[in-house]
């Protein structure tokens, strides 16, 4: 370690050989536009550094650079990346190949697409050993079995003969972890490895990562957009915004007394289990590479903005041991109380005794398999009912049965007084208008060949509400109502961000003036701050328009901020059903308690709420 060459002001935190030291790392496109600027950090053996940022902040790019890899169109333009005392940037291609998978390994975001669909998992595990010199079949088999046990997967030969598609998402990700730890690396880069997994699986994966890092003294870089996940896994956190680290410090410091306004806003955007505060999104967008301002990139969105912010990019201001923030007003910010979470939610009182939707004894089938067992729910006028559960619990099937998209069910679903036909096709146009559905993935649910205006206006012509100028005016009005401008009508979906697309999908549903809105995991593909903004919007719309909503989600804290009632589903049955506040504060069922404790949340991580069997079971290194 060449600590004497470190710039002044950087504190050596690790007391001797850091596993990895990054100094002034710059990454640019091959055409020369810088996308990641002056990144410096280090990670000690056994330590997990969380890198938090929204999509486009450069966090994955930084993570991959630790393996000497830059994606197509990008290149590492400057700085040093020291692994121990070897500079990765100075290595030849052959050296890099030997490094990857042995000294530094990578756990990708989407395990389903990162495992080769044509190869058995046993082969994919074995080749990472063979590529790095272990050619003894017997030893390799023993090592693979050991790894499989460490990630809590079966180690029998039959299991290893499976193909990736024969595994669940959580199992696939654990195979990815086994692969990453196979050669006992000194550094592991984890790129959002739990995004897309449900909370229980996420919780076990997080526990595995933390334990393996500690047991084997491995340094880990954990990239994520979810602060709550970071709180569960990392000891130190780097917050990235627009290609720069804006704050770097111990995890608990960042959540309690953050020194950067952006971190503050991110913390405020996280759904909280306690209190039921409304979520506050961050208005505006992060600037894209090449369009970043000369001064602080967060300036245009910052409430504490002063003219000096725009003069030059602020330096990192030290705030305490191992805690610094890239904000000229950091010393003021750090003294604020974290009070900008948003006000406690005052959810409107639903009009009781006037159910808009009644579900009685609904039993759902896939083929001859019963997947929903006798579901009974009611939705009052002006109420938001959250349907919560893990993947496979039947929550989406319930939503699809209500909307008539899934038509293999028996029982009774009534809209007001009216009995609904099983499939949407058998229902009248007016009933279809009254039940509107918003899909999970805004990237897939908007027709890429239609303008936003055409997509939003379509219900008007389908339901013969309006046409021509009048329809255009209504579309414009609707877009304003979801906090977009009428000018968006001329854009195409690929010109919009994920959050904007989801607003468009909401506008398309609302323009039909539905009696019930069904939201199927509509925020799970979005960044935390965008999720907060969408939930904020739905809350406003509900108060203004008196909407009744079925809100399907796996995110329990999110439910607290929006829904009056919650139904918890497990294996196709409702295990708990009632007022949100009561159920979250005092869950009666073991399953609900698990769901709550497995959900990564700031409260659990910072000790506000005692943890159950799940995440922070006293294992988090202090």
């Amino acid at each position, binding site marked *: 370690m060449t600590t004497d060459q470190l710039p002044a002001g950087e504190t050596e935190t690790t007391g001797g050989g850091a596993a990895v030291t990054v100094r002034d790392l710059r990454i640019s496109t091959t055409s020369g536009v810088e996308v990641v600027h002056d990144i410096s950090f280090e990670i000690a053996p056994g330590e997990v550094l969380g890198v938090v940022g929204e999509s486009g902040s450069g966090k994955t790019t930084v993570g*991959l650079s630790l*393996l000497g*890899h830059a*994606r*197509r169109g990008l290149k590492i333009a400057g700085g040093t990346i020291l692994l121990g005392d070897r500079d990765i940037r100075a290595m030849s291609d052959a050296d890099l*190949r*030997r*490094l*990857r*998978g*042995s000294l530094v*390994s*990578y756990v*990708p975001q*989407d395990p389903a*697409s*990162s*495992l*080769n*669909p*044509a*190869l*058995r998992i046993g082969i994919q595990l074995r*080749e*990472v050993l063979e*590529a*790095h010199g272990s050619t003894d079949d017997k030893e390799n088999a023993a090592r693979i079995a050991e790894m499989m046990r460490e990630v809590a997967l079966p180690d029998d030969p039959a299991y290893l003969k499976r*193909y990736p*598609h*024969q595994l669940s998402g959580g199992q696939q990700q654990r195979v990815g972890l086994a*692969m990453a730890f196979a050669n006992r690396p000194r550094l592991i880069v984890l790129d959002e490895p739990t995004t897309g997994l449900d909370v229980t699986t996420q919780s076990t994966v997080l526990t595995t990562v933390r334990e393996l890092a500690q047991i084997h003294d491995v340094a880990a870089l954990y990239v994520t957009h979810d602060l709550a996940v970071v709180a569960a896994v990392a000891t130190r956190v780097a917050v990235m915004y627009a290609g720069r680290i804006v704050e770097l410090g111990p995890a608990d410091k960042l959540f309690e007394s953050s020194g950067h306004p952006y971190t503050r806003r991110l913390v405020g955007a996280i759904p909280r289990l306690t209190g039921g505060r409304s979520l506050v999104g961050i208005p505006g967008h992060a600037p894209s590479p090449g369009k970043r301002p000369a001064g602080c990139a967060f300036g245009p969105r910052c409430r504490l903005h002063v003219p000096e912010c725009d003069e030059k990019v602020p330096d990192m201001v030290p705030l305490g041991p191992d805690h610094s923030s890239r904000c000229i007003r950091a010393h003021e910010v750090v003294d604020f109380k974290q009070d900008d979470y948003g006000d406690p939610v005052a959810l409107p009182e639903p009009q009781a005794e006037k159910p808009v939707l009644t579900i009685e004894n609904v039993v759902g089938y896939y083929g001859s398999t019963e997947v929903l067992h006798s579901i009974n729910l009611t939705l009052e006028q002006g109420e938001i009912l959250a349907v919560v559960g893990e993947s496979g619990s039947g929550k989406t099937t319930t939503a699809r049965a209500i909307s008539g998209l899934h038509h293999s069910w028996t029982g009774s679903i009534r809209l007001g007084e009216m009995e609904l036909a099983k499939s949407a096709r058998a229902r009248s146009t007016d009933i279809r208008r009254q039940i509107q559905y918003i899909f999970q993935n805004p990237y897939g649910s908007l027709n890429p060949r239609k303008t936003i205006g055409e997509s939003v206006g379509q219900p008007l012509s389908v339901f013969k509400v309006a046409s021509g100028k009048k329809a255009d005016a209504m579309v414009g009005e609707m877009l304003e109502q979801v906090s977009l401008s009428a000018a968006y009508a001329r854009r195409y979906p690929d010109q919009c961000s994920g959050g904007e697309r989801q607003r468009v999908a909401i506008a398309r549903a609302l323009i039909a003036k539905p009696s019930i809105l069904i939201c199927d995991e509509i925020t799970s593909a979005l960044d935390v701050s965008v999720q907060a903004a969408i939930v904020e919007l739905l809350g406003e719309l509900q108060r203004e328009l008196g909407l009744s909503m079925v809100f399907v989600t796996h995110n329990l804290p999110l439910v607290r901020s929006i829904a009056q009632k919650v139904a918890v589903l497990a294996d196709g049955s409702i295990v708990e059903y009632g007022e949100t506040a009561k159920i979250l504060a005092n869950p009666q069922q073991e399953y609900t308690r698990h769901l709550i404790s497995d959900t990564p949340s700031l409260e659990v991580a910072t000790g506000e709420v005692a943890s159950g069997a799940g995440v922070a079971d006293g294992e988090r290194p202090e």
Partner: protein
Amino acid sequence: MRFLRGGGIAGFVIRRVLLGLLVMLLVSIIVFVSTQLLGDPARAILGRDATPDRLAALQKQLNLDSSKVGQYFHWLGGLLSGDLGTSLASSQPVTSVLGARIANSAVLVVLAAVISVPISIAIGSYAALRREKVFDTVSSNLMLVLAALPEFVVAVLLVILLSTNVFHLLPAISPVPPGTHAWDYPDELVMPVATLVIAVAPYVSRIMRASMIEVLESDYVEMARLKGLPERTVLIRHALPNAIGPVFQVIAINLAYLAGGVVVIESVFNYPGIGLALVDAVNNHDIPVVQALAMLIAAVYVVLNLLADVATILVTPRLRTRL
């Protein structure tokens, strides 16, 4: 519908063979109906001056006086028992007329396939690897030009280049004498085979390039590299098996096209294969020969598609394990 599932790969093949037989049955009906449009075979044989008596006698001999349905089943029965009827032009059994011709065309098509498929897979893969570099730009554009040229133009260009005006290396025509085999005259095979290779290679290499690019951009190839695997292993074990699946379908369609498309090539080079036989048979109103060749070409399509589907399934575990 339960019998439509299960049985693994063998079950799948059996189901597809049965389906193929059904397709062939439908094709036989269409072939039979459409060949009726070629006119009265008896009149074709006897010429325009035939007397009504002789015409009637020949129609009776050719079984043309029974109902159309009766004629169809008579013909179908013959097909199933291997009796393709008698050529009207040569009065020889169709099997002996076509036997040598089929062998000649098969030599042409198989040679073209064996040469063009590996070459175009290699070109497509290498272009994908060197994407947007010189090799890719040159090969992609060249392939596009070749794909746009009709085969007979390619054939004529080859003749000008190699057999007549420029160089005089190879014979310009390939008239394999009756009673001999095509493979006895390797120099006569070069030009027709080259033309067919040029006809097929562009399609296969372009789809291979596109498929390979998609696979090389995939997360699992990036992951394989980040595992530190040697580039050879990444390409051969991780990329190729996934990229080649969609290519099998294109290869099958192209080879099937060759089986029919040899018509033009064979007539350019005067090569005695089924293509030339088909042209002659249509000109002569030799209905049994036309029918036999139509059924043969249809069978080639069915068999090649079946092989392509089986090959695709073999390299795609997700499909295989569902059987």
